[in-house]
Every structure is written in structure tokens, then in C-alpha cells.
């Protein structure tokens, strides 16, 4: 049997945390422009 990581686990594992990094970059850029 071939195993893989379930789709929902992929989403929860690889979306919220990288999104937080993206947010920190975006807010950094916005605050620098100010």
C-alpha cells in the first residue's frame, strides 16, 4: 500500500505557519514605507 500525507493535513501543516512569515514580511515592508 502506498502512503501519503492527507490533503487536509498538508493544508494545516503548510499554510498557516508560512502565512505568518509572509504577514511579517508584508507588515515590515508597509511599516518601512511609512
Amino acid at each position: 500500500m502506498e502512503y501519503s500525507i492527507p490533503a487536509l493535513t498538508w493544508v494545516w501543516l503548510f499554510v498557516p505557519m508560512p502565512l505568518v512569515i509572509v504577514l511579517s514580511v508584508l507588515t515590515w515592508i508597509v511599516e518601512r514605507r511609512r
Partner: protein
Amino acid sequence: MDTATLVTFIIYLIGMLGIGIFMYYRTNDLSDYVLGGRKLRPGVAALSAGASDMSGWLLLGLPGAIYATGFGEAWMAIGLSIGAYLNWQFIAKRLRVYTEVSDNSITVPDFLGNRFKDPYLLRVISALVILLFFTFYTSSGMVAGAKLFEASFGLSYQTALWIGTIVVVSYTFLGGFLAVAWTDFVQGSLMFLALIVVPIVAVTEIGGIQEAVQAVGEIRPDNLDMVTGVGVMAIISSLAWGLGYFGQPHIIVRFMALRSKNDVPIAKFIGTTWMILGLYGAIFTGFMGLAFINSQDVSILSAYGIEVVTENGVHMLGDPEKIFIAFTQILFHPIVAGILLAAILSAIMSTIDSQLLVSSSAVAEDFYKAIFRRNATDKELVWVGRMATLVIALIAALIAMNPESSVLELVSYAWAGFGAAFGPIILLSLFWQRMTRNGALAGIIVGALTVIVWGGFLEGGLFDLYEILPGFLFNTIVTVIISLMEKPSAQIEAEFADVLTKIKE
């Protein structure tokens, strides 16, 4: 223990002491000793906050939990990442500005006292809570450090405890905040390096990510699933850990120590990235561990002194929390293994030193200076801080001499306790002009009591929810209600307006 590993490890410890001695000559007054004279660079502040926060959990607890039960344990990492980001986003800049405007407050109790113009009650109660919980927190860190020393070097627990204590206390005693922040920076860098290198080498050894997924699936298919089988209550409780950040004195004091409010955005980016990549490293170290250990010959594992149990034909570590240590021993050259081992101790030491310093700051600034000696000289206060460091560390070490001591169970309430007691107070005090001193006082008491009662005496159903959530909520409600029943003084309102102006400058 290989000699090369031991030598690398000793060099690390001497390096930490060297930083302490160097910073001794840069510490002139109490502001230097407890806050580094507010000259901390963003990179140092970011890594120092992260390293102080994470403790041994990042290299031992989290990989161990993922190794034992799989991705279902990763929810807490998400909660902590979001919480740490929000802490930088909403607390850092305002706290940096407010603490300077409000009589140059240098500790969290000092800030609360100055913010609400209450020189005694609010400040002393906050300082007492900090002193009590951080002494036990420090003690618990010492137990973890001594156990690591004991397992790695074959020293007796007591000898290991006192060696570790002497090193941490020496550099904290001498160099105060600057030594703690810079050692944290080095320690945070080591932890980061270790958490990136170990899973990469591990996945290469296993043959690739798909191979690791396949191997884990064959051993325990449930470990691949983060959602199925994990209850809603468990997910909410894990995510709720993130709420704790707003009230952790040893973390938010880094914001107060920043060189400038303008350093916050870059520090936020560095801190958030460091933490999230580190968490991924820890998660995948644990995940790869299941595939890796099972693929090894038991005799090879035993030769490294790794305790293995075999269940249904699957080789597992006797102690899942040792998965990171097992990787360092098996996969790396002894010199690199020494560095990686130092990274684990770094995680523990960086939390102990920060908590020790916050406690000694409370003694020097919030008891000695605020109550007994308002006119104390800078030199006198620095030495009171140093002596407090020594005495608190001694008490913590004496408690740690008995690692089974039930008093150490108090630590399990510390994160929730600080988060629920101080979190809403810090947030509201920075964002809500109408907040009053009585509101803050009532909120702290209700938040702390909720955590103790909910966590210690109630169980089943809704009461299985992590106590920080109701504690945070009840604290906020009580603080708002009591504050709305009275009005802050004109002086407090004027200072708040001044802070808003300075933030926009």
C-alpha cells in the same frame, strides 16, 4: 561520551562565560543590568525572545511528541507561531514606547505601577507572582538541564545540576541582561542551526521525503494525519497556547529593551521566521525519527547507549523525547554532535537565564528600590540585582535537587498563569485609555484564580479545555467591567495620549 564531543561542549560553556565577563564591563546601572540600557539590536532581541521562550520543549518535547503520536501534535506549533507574531505585531512597539514615557519603567511590574500611578499594590502583587512562578520555572529548567548532562556525560544528577547552575548563574550574575541577551543570541543561532541540519541529514539518510512518509505510514498510518482522531477540544487547547505570549514577562521585556521602536518590524520578521523554521525542524525531526530508528539495527542503537523497545516488530525509543539526541549520536561526527548537544542545552539555558534575570529584576526594582530604598544608587541596585540572581538561583537549585518534588508541578500552570493573569492586562493597558488600576488588579486576580481552579480542580467536558482560554476571557471581562465603573485620572489619560503621539512620530 566521545572526547571530541566533550571538548566541543566545554568550549561552548567557556564561550558563554566569556560573554558574561565581557558584558560585566558594559553594565553600569540597573537599567543596564535588567534591560541592557535599551540598546538591543533587532536581531539580538528577536533571537533572544525566541530562545527564552522555547526552552527544551523545542528540541526535546515537540520532536518527542511528533515521534510518538505524529502530526496531530503539531497544532500547538501553529498556535505558538500565531501568538508570537501577534505579540510582536501588537505589543512590541507600544510597550517599547509606553515603558519609556511612563517614568522609564524597566520591569513589567514597574510598568504596571507607573502606568496606573500605583507605586505599591499593583507593582508588588505582580512582582510576587513573577518571583514565585519563575523560581519554580527556573528550577524545572535546571532539572531538565541536569538530566541532559547526566545522560550525556554519565555524571551524577547532583554534580550535573551544580555544574549547569554555576555556568548559568555566573554569566547572568556578571553581565546581567546584556550577557543573557547575547548568550541567548548565540544559543538561538545554535538551536536554529541544529533544527535545520538534523532533519535535512535525516531525510537524506532515509532516502527522501516520500520514502520517509511511506516508512512512517507502514509503521503507524495515524501519524500522518493531523486532523482525523484529534478532538476539537484538543485542537482549540493547543492553539490557545498562543494566547500566553502577551503576558510572559521574560519575553516581552525584550521588546522594552529594543534600541528603538523603529526596530520592531525587522525584529518581528527575524523572530517569526526563526521560530517557524525552528518549529518545522522540530516537527520533521520527530517525524523522520519513526522511520529512521525502525530502520536501524538494534545492536547499533544499543552501542550508542540508546534504549530501544520493540513493539509488534517495530523498534521505538524507550524515551521518545530523546529522538533528537539519538540523531546527533548516530548521524554526526563527534565534534558536530558536541555542537548539537550544546544546542539542546542552549535551549534550556536560554530560558533559565531569562527567567532568573526577570526574577532578580523584580527583587531589585520592585521590592528593594520601590519599597525600601527609593534613593538607592545605581551601583547599589546593580549589586542587589546580582545578589538576588545568586539567591534565587540557589533556591531554585535546592528545589531541583529533588527532581521528583511535587512543587515542580506548579510549572505546568506557569505559562497559562502568566498568560491569563498578565496577558489581557498588558494588551488593554496599551490599547485602552479608560482602563483603571482597580480593573487591572481585579483582572490579574481573576485570571490567575481561574487558571488555578480550572486547571487544578475541575475536569471533564468543557473543563478539559486548556485553562488559559477561560482565564484570559474572564480576566478581560472583569477588567473591562471594573474599569468602566470608574474613571482614570487626568494624568493617566494625558500620558496615554502622549504615548499615542510618540508611536506615530
